[in-house]
């Protein structure tokens, strides 16, 4: 029972309270770049969630089964980035084969998932928070991905409506998106007390 409770609070914490985008500022590039349309934002979110789950789990395993027993922590960052790059390559090949329209609409943003800080960030946070069970690592990785998807979809929804609004000329584009993100992040601070 305790484990289940721990997993649920961990999941809620990483989705709502410690949302990677809105409180840790990870994955801001796709957040500003792909949040123009809600369907693309959702697709991007799913791709990131998949890569994040895969690489979060794999890096945790590599960290605990190989690097720590062998005392090779110094090579941690190089190993992590290699795992992430391979996972992205896998997703790219899969999408190109089975969902060509989605693949085309992603364009440059798909290979850029490799340099999405949210993914490497989550792998590093798993290490920093001292997560010591595989199950917890998997749940937190999925939660991180879902949190990202949620944040980017909310933003895309707002931006679709923002198009009909008269924004001051110098604030158009990235500035107004950042200000909107600020207000969203303010709203998410309200979740801080729920656990």
């Amino acid at each position, binding site marked *: 029972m305790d484990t289940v409770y721990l997993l649920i609070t961990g999941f809620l914490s990483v989705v709502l309270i410690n949302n990677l985008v809105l409180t840790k500022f990870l994955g801001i590039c796709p957040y500003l770049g792909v949040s123009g349309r809600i369907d693309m934002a959702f697709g991007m979110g799913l791709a990131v969630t998949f890569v994040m789950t895969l690489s979060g789990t794999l890096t945790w395993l590599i960290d605990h089964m190989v690097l720590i027993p062998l005392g090779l922590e110094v090579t941690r960052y190089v190993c992590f980035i290699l795992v992430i790059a391979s996972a992205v390559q896998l997703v790219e090949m899969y999408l190109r084969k089975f969902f060509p329209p989605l693949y085309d609409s992603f364009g440059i943003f798909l290979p850029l998932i490799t*340099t999405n800080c949210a993914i490497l960030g989550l792998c590093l946070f798993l290490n920093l928070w001292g997560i010591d069970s595989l199950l917890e690592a998997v749940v937190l990785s999925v939660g991180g991905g879902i949190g990202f998807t949620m944040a980017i979809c909310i933003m895309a929804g707002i931006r679709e409506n923002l198009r009909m609004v008269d924004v001051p000329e110098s604030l158009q584009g990235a500035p107004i998106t950042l200000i909107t993100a600020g207000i969203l992040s303010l709203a998410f601070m309200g979740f801080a007390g729920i656990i």
Partner: protein
Amino acid sequence: MATDSDGQTCVYKNTLLAGLWRENPVLRLLLGMCPTLAVTAAVKPAFTMGMCVVFVLVCSNVMVSLMRDKLKPHLRILMFTLTIATFVTIADLLLKAFQPDMSAALGPYVPLIIVNCIIIARAEACASKNPILLSIVDALSMGAGFTVALCVLAGIREVLGTGKFFEIQVMPKAFVPWAALSMPVGAFLALGFLLGLVTLITKKRS
């Protein structure tokens, strides 16, 4: 011959100045947003972060420039990333050894320099095509632009958010700190308005 060397000097000067304003990585190209937002609650961590990025940028540009003739096109991004990851590990260990407080304060954002788009963008756009000296100048200019942008943002947030600058009290006692500016909200809002200001200045000038 004289004109040729004049042209060379001009190229270097242009490259050196580009990073500070015209192609400022943060304010104009919107690269490296994560550290810009994450470490700018105070000036000291922002400056440390800027220095780490300069170090990694110079080292990786030199390395990439050295191996630019041997790169296979489809493997180049992987090579860039591995080079950068190696230098970031070095920077992280140096910071842990000599600035343990700052290392703890910056936390995972130091290893996250690996995925900082500025560094990979400069490796791709400059170092993989140009000789070493120009790559170093480019790295210094971009790094300086990044550091200055970070420090300006951090300055605004620290002075208004805590009433201090570089941990020294600058605002009068009666000043009520805008605590929100030290929180994640403040990062987004301050950067949003700063970018708006930069757009405004650019429009006025042209």
